[in-house]
């Protein structure tokens, strides 16, 4: 399964990458599992507190499913306005 992953704000800086295309092994079906998998190469994904996620530009919980071709984003709590 292939996905596009985006990182924003402080997490983007900590990861050192703003976007990457990832080929996933079998068995990764949710945002939480994706986060754990990516945490092996990007330590900040494991250590960040209150990390938020979006799938295809909609905010979701960590139990949300991910599928082939999805755009998944990880970011800190938002601070606009």
């Amino acid at each position, binding site marked *: 399964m292939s996905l596009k992953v985006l990182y*924003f*704000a402080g997490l983007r800086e900590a990861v050192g990458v703003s976007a990457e295309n990832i080929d996933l092994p079998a068995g990764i079906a949710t945002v939480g599992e994706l986060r754990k998998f990516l945490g092996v190469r990007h330590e900040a994904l494991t250590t960040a507190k209150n990390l938020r996620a979006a799938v295809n*530009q909609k*905010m979701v919980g960590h139990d949300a499913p991910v599928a082939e071709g999805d755009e998944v984003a990880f970011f800190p*709590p*938002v*601070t606009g306005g």
Partner: protein
Amino acid sequence: MSEVSVQTADFDVGVEIEALSSGDVGAGAVASFVGLVRADKLAEGQAGEGVTAMTLEHYPGMTESALAGIVVEARRRWDLRRVRVIHRVGRLLPGERIVFVGVASSHRGDAFAACEFIMDYLKTQAPFWKKEETPDGGRWVDARESDDVAARRWEAVPGGKAT
């Protein structure tokens, strides 16, 4: 005109408010909000670190759809006429405008409620992030618990348009 704009350019508050009611015979109430970069807030940072500017990062594409979704939800809850949301991104100096929310309605109660609702949800749902500049480098602004509290209080007001 689009209801939602994400832009680096400043906006003209008078023009935006005028456009919310111009030519609309039923718009008797226009509530609006302008958020600005506070200089004293910036100065609340670590001692000795004067903050000179702020940079707003966002998630292009999702930002616009998140704001549009918040407006849809506001329209579901209240009886609204024109609505306008503008959020700036990029580098801003103290005193500069960040955000505009304007809501026109027949009655002031709906206009006020929807305007504040949009701001509260924008603060917790729209993918913007602020980074302050200091002489020692940048510093990402932490999310405020009070913003989550403000957004959650609307959960107790689930629907039912005001009369």
